[in-house]
């Protein structure tokens, strides 16, 4: 095993995780080890990004088999690269795909895996702080002297440019994917519905406090009036009021809007895991002791069914 840290990101016809590369490279740089960035289907400006954030090396891996979202091929490609480089740590961004890819790669490397990482430190061994119990606790895991595969939560690390740009050693690398036939056949692909919650600057989220599926319309109208998107807590997704692609939280989407308005949402840790990084949180809840008010900058205590129509009016008054 070398002292190197490999940050790995990928893109395919379904998802683009390269946007997390600056955060991963910054996290790796903080551990005072040489940083190598493995970019699978790399973006055009990868070399410039590597230089800005201080990766010493950039390995570009392009392969037609990796353009389709195909976990078997991706796992094989990353595992081959990691087996050859034998890094100390392999960092991946915690995306939907990473939840499957990270443990599988770890198993092939005989490595330890930790998901939900929010900090990585080195002092006589690597220690990873991850959230547990939905965010109610933090757990610190020691990796011993094995390779670690770590999935870093979005937004956990703030990307910062390297103090001084240094030359990046760039190489085009290949993987032998002849043995990685995809075993899962896609019969009906998901149809992405345009705008992504992850990109929204304003999000209005509704919870069970709305009282009925029909009242979700209030959330949509307020989101519209603020030029944002509507989202939801898990119970109202489970109850079929809203499509699951709208769910925010530990098992939904992780978002970082500048404004997050939570309406009839209790603020359980598993919900906050998806939105606590919002710049400003505004909450409307009839219970003054609701957990959401511990995260909110502004709060209104009251019945959201009465208050939201007035918020819509006030928002339109601009």
């Amino acid at each position, binding site marked *: 095993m070398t002292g190197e840290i490999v940050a790995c990101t990928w893109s395919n016809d*379904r998802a683009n995780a390269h946007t997390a590369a600056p955060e991963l490279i910054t996290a790796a740089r903080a551990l005072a080890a040489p940083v190598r960035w493995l970019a699978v289907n790399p973006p055009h400006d990868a070399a410039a990004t590597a230089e800005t954030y201080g990766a010493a090396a950039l390995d570009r891996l392009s392969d037609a088999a990796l353009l389709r979202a195909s976990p078997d091929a991706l796992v094989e490609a990353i595992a081959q690269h990691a087996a050859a480089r034998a890094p100390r740590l392999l960092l991946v961004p915690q995306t*939907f795909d990473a*939840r*499957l890819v*990270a*443990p*599988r790669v*770890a*198993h*092939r490397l005989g490595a330890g*895996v*930790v*998901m939900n990482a929010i900090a990585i430190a080195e002092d006589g061994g690597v220690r990873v702080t*991850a959230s*547990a119990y*939905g*965010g*109610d*606790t*933090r*757990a*610190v*895991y*020691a*990796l*011993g002297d*094995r390779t*670690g595969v770590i999935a870093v939560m979005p937004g956990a690390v703030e990307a910062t440019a390297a103090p001084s740009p240094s030359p990046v050693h760039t190489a085009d690398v290949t993987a032998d994917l002849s043995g990685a036939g995809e*075993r*899962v*056949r*896609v*019969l009906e692909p*998901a149809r992405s519905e345009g705008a992504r919650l992850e990109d929204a600057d304003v999000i209005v989220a509704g919870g069970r406090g709305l009282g009925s599926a029909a009242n979700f319309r209030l959330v949509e109208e307020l989101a519209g009036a603020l030029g944002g998107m509507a989202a939801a807590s898990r119970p109202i997704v*489970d109850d079929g009021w809203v499509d*699951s*692609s709208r769910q925010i939280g*530990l098992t939904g*989407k992780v978002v970082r809007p500048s404004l997050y308005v939570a309406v009839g949402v209790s603020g359980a840790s*598993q919900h906050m895991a998806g939105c*606590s990084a919002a710049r*400003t949180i*505004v*909450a409307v809840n009839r219970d003054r002791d609701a*957990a959401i*008010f*511990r*995260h909110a*900058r502004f*709060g*209104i*205590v*009251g019945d959201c069914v*009465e*208050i939201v*129509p*007035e*918020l819509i009016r*006030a928002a339109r*008054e601009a």
Partner: protein
Amino acid sequence: MIRIVVCIKEVPDPDAVNSYAVAGRLTIGDDGRSLVQSAIARLTNAYDEQAIEAALRIRDAGVECAITAVSVGDDCAAMLKRAAALGADEIAAITPPPESDWHATAALLAAYIRQRGDVDLVLSGRQASDDDQGVVPALIGEALGVPVVTIARAIAVAAHGAGHAARVTRVTPDGDETVEVTLPAVVTVSSELGQPRYPTAARSMAARKMQPHVIAHDALVPPDGLAPRVRLERMYVPEAGGACEFIAGDTPAALASALFERLRAEGIVR
């Protein structure tokens, strides 16, 4: 006939953990690594209940199946009996080694499944609500060399060639996706599957007499195969958030105007 193994884990009731956290009374024990939870009930991880439900729905759909529920854990007989009351035909408890991690858990479950033989479908929850890792099913899949399909809301099994295949509807960030996989395979189940059923009185009576088949860890995997790779060193409760400015006003309209005045003054909305 197909054989389904459902992996279930006992966890502290997450709603109770949340309530303790909100009340500022969630505390870590003297070992620094576990919750003080004498008052917190232990339950089947909710996603694992949904995994049992998924197995029962496959049976309800007319596929003849034998269902085994298995857990790696101490004192999990009551949870396993509940799985039997729901419809598991066979229950098994694997005694964990003193120092364990999710790699060891997966190694034990994979070894059990291999030893059990003829397992067509391994079902599990998408993640456990204590560690939130969601890695055990993928590790089992790799150890067995079978495909893993994550985050199912529906699973249908049908004959396929000489064996069977599962058609799985997955919940993805872009909406539902339908995939097909030839069995054997591992499938993880999510809450979108819907409400699990309750045990019937008759089945509960019958299950009371069932005892889990108890298997020691070293009967499945030699000790060096269980050495923890990830060691929980300590756990702590993070600081609660900042102070909230409560908006004052006598009517909904006054509250709304006052809020937007503040938001506009701070440049948060235009």
